[in-house]
């Protein structure tokens, strides 16, 4: 299968038969049982417009929450929607998350030596 093809190529790169070897590895050429974590994508601040509306209402009515109840409820709905969106967006996109991949690899690691 493709495993032996890769091993032949690696053997060719390491061999000294055709001049100097291309690779001079310090560590063994094997995959780690870990995936590098992805850079956190910086989003923007959510619900800023609702917050500014709420604060304007507060300023006008001396921080009275009963008078500003409508803006408060609008703000809460916006926050909930933003939270749901953030949660749903994290896991989809087709790929496994690095954390999930690492848990799977910990449970089913690549065998580096014969047990």
């Amino acid at each position, binding site marked *: 299968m493709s495993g032996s093809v890769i091993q032949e190529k690696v053997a060719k790169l390491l061999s000294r038969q055709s001049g100097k070897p291309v690779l001079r590895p310090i560590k063994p050429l094997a995959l780690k049982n870990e995936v590098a974590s992805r850079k956190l994508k*910086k*989003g*923007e*601040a*959510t*619900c*800023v417009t609702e*917050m*500014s509306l*709420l*604060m304007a209402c*507060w*300023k006008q009515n001396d*921080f009275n*929450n009963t008078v500003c109840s409508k803006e*408060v409820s609008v*703000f809460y709905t916006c*926050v909930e929607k933003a*939270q749901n969106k*953030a949660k749903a967006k994290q896991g989809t996109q087709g790929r496994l998350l690095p954390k999930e991949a690492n848990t799977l690899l910990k449970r089913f690691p690549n065998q580096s030596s014969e047990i």
Partner: protein
Amino acid sequence: MCVSLSLCLVRWSRYNPYYLDPDPSKDARVPESELSPEEKELQELKTVSPIKAALSSDTSSAFNDPLISKFINMMMQDGNKILARGIMTQTLETIKRKQVEKYHKSPAAKREEIECNPYTVFHQALENCKPIIGLASVQKGGKSYQVPVPLTDNRRRFLAMKWLITECRDNKHRRTHMYEKLSQELLAAFANEGNVVKRKHDLHKMAEANRAYAHYRWW
């Protein structure tokens, strides 16, 4: 202060995320015809997945209130649940007494507005103490700014309870009991006055003053 040996703690503190919370109320068993499709799915899930052990403080009685239990736990010091629960019951009793006295002293026209149920007074007072926006410290360009940030429901409830408890512990005369001071603060918060509501308003004012930094948030 575990006096009797019959109170063995069986519940673990860390469970796998797929464990469901127990529902000790007597109305948990509803006949199938009255359930919507999502609730039917939830019931199916409950039959298959494991459920956490119930806490010894959760009862199936009608008087079991999760909010009051949480407040008792927050008031408790050194594991002395008996004392904390005693203080809570005394507080509720004091609230009831004060409100009933007010009820009998007031003219017939104003009697309907006076709320005598101490549980509703507690719930409403806590709602009035909950902040809507909080401040988070965000570092940008070497300097840290206080950024106005929306808070989760749990965080708001925790802050309200924490403020109430610290206020009652610190700002009282050495000879007033905790339940007395608590009842005073709860009745004041019920009427939107008092130090705790003032603290909430101060937080809102700080958030309003720092509204220019709202865009420093990235979540």
